[in-house]
């Protein structure tokens, strides 16, 4: 329990993961620290390849076979029994222990593409019931009733009919609801959503997001969102972690990140989000591409693309600078000796505009 009375559920420290293949070793995660508190929503934001999914897959123990965890701890605190807490280091658990005790039961995950996430040869109902029967030995009839309830909870009409159907008979939005139902089947305490709406129509996206929020409220679970969509982040997140090239470069509350971003990469991300009042005739993009993680990275990984880079960025990697109790940024610009660099003008004016509108 920390000062504000929040319970910490997940604490990740110094996580470092590499992928080994015949050609090369890719250092996908290069030292990630992450915290999640009970009942809150954490969003991990970043480009493709930044390592967002890998971090969470490590927490679930479903990394690819050629992944090697070089270092780090993932401390997870959960209710062993009523009012009895237990903290384990997920990394130290064997695969079997993870599957038996954590996966599905305490931490559940939903994936991006509902089309491919569901087993095409198993009825929807059976897939929901599978987890309950596996973990708790729930008798068939009871599991069936629970599955029906879950279908209702995730907002599927006519659950009696749907429960017997197969995934291909459902629409995309419905499938994702089923995936959510499966995730909730064993009453987990933490839900990880890996780009849950990317594969869906825009109209359905909003509904799914709202569904997850409602479930979170009603069940009191904590949620981690992995996404590259800043619009969704603004809507759902309490905390935001910005990831780049396998490290977290800035973290803070959603307000801090959106209204007072400090890392040039975050500036880039925010600037790249077009909105209706964007004056620029050109859409801003961050030039260049993310670095290949095959080689050792010297200095700040973002330096090559960073127009605000300092000379030290090419030599030494910046540590996390504290901006407030909750706001941290890993950039040398935060050092006292660094020149005062402000965020780009367009971003500044946009933020001013947004602040004004909300008053």
């Amino acid at each position: 329990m920390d000062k504000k009375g929040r319970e910490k559920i997940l604490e990740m420290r110094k996580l470092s993961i590499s992928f080994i293949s015949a050609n090369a070793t890719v250092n996908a995660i290069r030292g990630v620290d992450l915290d999640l508190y009970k009942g809150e929503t954490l969003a991990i934001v970043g480009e493709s390849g930044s390592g967002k999914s890998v971090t969470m897959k490590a927490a679930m123990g479903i990394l690819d076979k050629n992944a090697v965890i070089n270092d780090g701890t993932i401390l997870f605190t959960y209710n062993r029994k009523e009012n009895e807490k237990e903290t384990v280091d997920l990394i130290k658990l064997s695969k079997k222990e993870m599957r038996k005790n954590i996966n599905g039961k305490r931490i559940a995950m939903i994936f991006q593409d509902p089309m491919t996430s569901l087993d095409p040869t198993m009825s929807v109902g059976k897939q929901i019931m599978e987890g309950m029967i596996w973990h708790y030995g729930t008798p068939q009839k009871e599991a069936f009733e629970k599955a029906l309830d879950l279908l209702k909870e995730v907002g599927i009409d006519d659950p009696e009919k749907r429960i017997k159907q197969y995934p291909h008979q459902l629409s995309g939005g419905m499938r994702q609801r089923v995936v959510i139902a499966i995730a909730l089947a064993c009453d987990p305490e933490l839900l990880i959503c890996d780009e849950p709406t990317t594969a869906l129509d825009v109209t359905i996206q909003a509904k799914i997001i709202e569904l997850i929020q409602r479930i979170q409220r009603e069940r009191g679970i904590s949620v981690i969102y992995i996404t590259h969509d800043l619009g969704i982040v603004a809507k759902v997140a309490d905390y935001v972690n910005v990831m780049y090239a396998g490290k977290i470069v800035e973290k803070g509350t959603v307000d801090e990140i959106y209204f007072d971003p400090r890392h040039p990469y975050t500036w880039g991300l925010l600037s790249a989000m077009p909105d209706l009042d964007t004056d620029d005739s050109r859409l801003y993009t961050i030039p260049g591409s993310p670095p290949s993680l095959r080689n050792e990275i010297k200095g700040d990984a973002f330096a090559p693309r960073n127009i605000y880079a300092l000379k030290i960025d090419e030599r030494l990697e910046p540590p996390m600078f504290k901006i407030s109790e909750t706001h941290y940024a890993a950039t040398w610009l935060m050092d006292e000796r660094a020149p005062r660099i402000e965020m780009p003008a367009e971003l500044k004016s946009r933020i001013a505009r947004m602040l004004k509108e909300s008053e």
Partner: protein
Amino acid sequence: MRKYILKRVLISVFTLLAITLVLFILLQLMPGSPFNDEKLSATQKAALNAKYGLDQPLTVQFLKYVYNMFRGSFGVSYNISKNTPISQLIQSRLPISIAVGGMAVTLGAIFGLILGIVAALKHNTFWDTLCTIISVIGVSVPSYVFALGLSYTFGFKLSWLPMLYSAGQPFTSSVMPSVALSLFTLASVARFTRTEMLEVLGSDYMLLAESKGIYGGPLIVRHALRNSLIPIVTVLAPLIVDLMTGSLVVEKIFSIPGVGSLLVTAIQSNDYNVVIALSFIYSAMYVGIMLVVDILYGIIDPRIRLAKEGDN
């Protein structure tokens, strides 16, 4: 679903009819008349022709022909065994061929499945390489080469197994031929199973199942196997057919008195009637098996069994 079955049945029937037509045409092209007896006088020949309706227009003959074929009355052989009804010749031999062939398919399918599954589960290890080697060899090398090899090693040199089929020891003497025949099936099934399994093992729903906490046996059986085995049914059909081809030579090598060696003998002694009759039987079996497999596939795969209902 019903539409699916109906469509398949129609195509099968049509195919069979087309085959019969082809056979009929060929029959007309064959040198000699069905009554290959020089001793017959012209009037006798005319009388026989009239009796068997050979003086009627071709279309009528064809229809009668189709009728006869489907009924199983194939006429008589005139070279192998003069004037014996072909159906009689076939009757005694067909069960033997089916027995040997059946054993071969079963052996090949079961071991092929096991090999393929193991290879996929132990991807990129020794078992995987072994599977690939066996598959390539089994698929490339004709079954009669194996048959000869087996016959020589185990029959001739080592004398463990009888080199020729004998009705007295139907089981032991069927071992080598069945094994020789089964190798192609084994190799194909193993290769295919491995590919399917690998793809399934890497799929998203496997990942989801794992994230639910399922592991070990139930994970493989419930999710991986079911999905990879469905397409295997489709592969088996052509394999069974290939078995028929292989069986001809294998039967000859081991002197099995089956339908295959009958066909070979018929070809070599120009007994056209027998050849055509057997061709019809083979075709009918082939078409029949394909039909059964198609329908089976439709039943097993829920995606075909239950058509999509449309979006919500």
